């Protein structure tokens, strides 16, 4: 059952990566980043799973799941959110200059 979760998250990760490469819209690039990050978080959360586990809040009613991945996920969510917010802010500013959010046009720096 948990294998399905891993498969899903790996697929989501690859979709995110593919989105960044295949789409030219910068907002979709950011979307791809968000997808990749969610996939990693899903992998981390899944790794804490114990068959028949309960939430790690005392008093436990059975074997509790691993609480450490939850803590990581919380931390990583906030970090990812700030990254994505920053990316959006950059795109908004850049759109002012290029009048476009097309990756193929935003290439003033090259060579």
């Amino acid at each position: 059952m948990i294998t399905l979760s891993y498969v899903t998250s790996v697929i989501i990760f690859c979709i995110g990566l593919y989105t960044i490469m295949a789409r030219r819209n910068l907002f979709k690039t950011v979307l791809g980043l968000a997808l990749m990050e969610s996939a990693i978080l899903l992998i981390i959360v899944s790794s804490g799973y114990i068959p028949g586990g309960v939430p790690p809040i005392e008093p436990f009613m059975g074997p509790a799941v691993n609480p450490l991945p939850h803590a990581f996920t919380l931390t990583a969510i906030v970090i990812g959110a700030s990254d994505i917010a920053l990316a959006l802010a950059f795109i908004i500013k850049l759109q002012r200059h290029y009048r476009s959010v097309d990756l193929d046009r935003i290439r003033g720096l090259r060579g």
Partner: protein
Amino acid sequence: MSLSNLFDGINAPFLAAGLVLYISAVISGEWYFKAPGERVRFRVLVAAASAGSIGILSSGNWLLFVFFLEILTLSLWSMISMKEPRAALVYLLSQLAAAGLILVGTAGVYAHTGSLAIGPVPEPWRVFFMAGFGIKAAFPLLHFWLPEAHGKAPSPASALLSGFAVKTGILGLIRAFPEPFAPLVLIGTVMAFFGAFMAVFPRDIKRVLAYSTMSHLGFMTAAVGAGSGEIAAAYAFSHAMIKGNLFISAGIVEKTFGTRDIFALRGSGRLHFAAVAALTAGAFFAAGLPGTASYLLKNSVISSLGHTAPWWQPFMLTAAGMMAAGYLLNITAPLFFRDNSKNGTPKHEEGGNIIFAVLSVTILLLVIAADSFFPSILHAFRVDTGFTPASDKLEAFIASAAAGLIILLARLRLKGIPEQGLPDIKICLSMDEGPLYAFNRVSGCCHPGRLNTFVFVALVFLVLLMLTL
């Protein structure tokens, strides 16, 4: 750093040559450079170069050897760039490449033996030393910088370059390959002949001298390859004196008449004998006529090859020696025997130059004294190999005949040759624009500025990592 190497049998001739050359370069620089700023700069650079040279000669380990080589390179680069920045750049880059190769070889030797001391190089690292010192000593195909740098530098700097800087390569070869090493003999013979052949064609005096240097370096390399480093060292001393004299006097000629083109200089010797006398005298000694030091040493080199050498190696060396007479005749004879009524009188300046002519002749006398006439006084510099010339062989005669033929043909052709002579290595140097341009276009694609390409490259990289790790 140990100073003990400074006065041993191999380094002493180099040291003596360096002393004489640096002193004469300073004196001739005082005359050659007119602007006071240039004069001061030249003095400082000569001081730096001589410091580097002392370091090279006294250092007992390869790292310091490279260290001081680079100091010498830098100061010489700076001297050349006073006149020709582009030739200086070629010089600097080639010498840096040589130093880098030697450095890599040194590191390998250290990893192999755990010692940095100068000495024979173990097998797998020989190639780096051969390539590195090969650039320094202008092996064929690695010589691309030599005609450029020697031909275009200011004359005192050319004297230092040809007299001392290229000899550091020979010194390194002697140190790295004390045992007989056949590839070096092969390279040396080819190089001697190739340099002599190329020297026949140019019209620029200094370019002729540059190729002549290459030819002589070939003799020295052959001697190193034959395992007789002492002969190479003695040859280096004698050649340093002669080339120092020739380049300084070429500078006198150039300053006096404003050109180095032989055609434009025709008949100038008649008008102004003092200016060309030094050059002529130098050429006489350089040509290796019997009785001069060059004659003795060339024959020592040929005989040091021994009887096991293939027949064509002494043959080629003899031919190169004979051709030396030819190409030096090429640049000196027109000074006296051609009438230049069509071209008008070359311009010339009076004053000063006679002193320097005398100076260079004095240097020359020192050569004779050292090598030919007073063996007992300066015995340390002399090598007594017994006079066993290879000239008793039939091929020596054939070689002389062949050389004479080549020179004859070349003399006939000389009239139609353009100013730079035959299409030599200079063509290859100018061809570098083509590959460079193509490379420029290609490397432009390395940074397309497109974000998804970046991510794609990163992904490819990751997949490669996944596959290899």
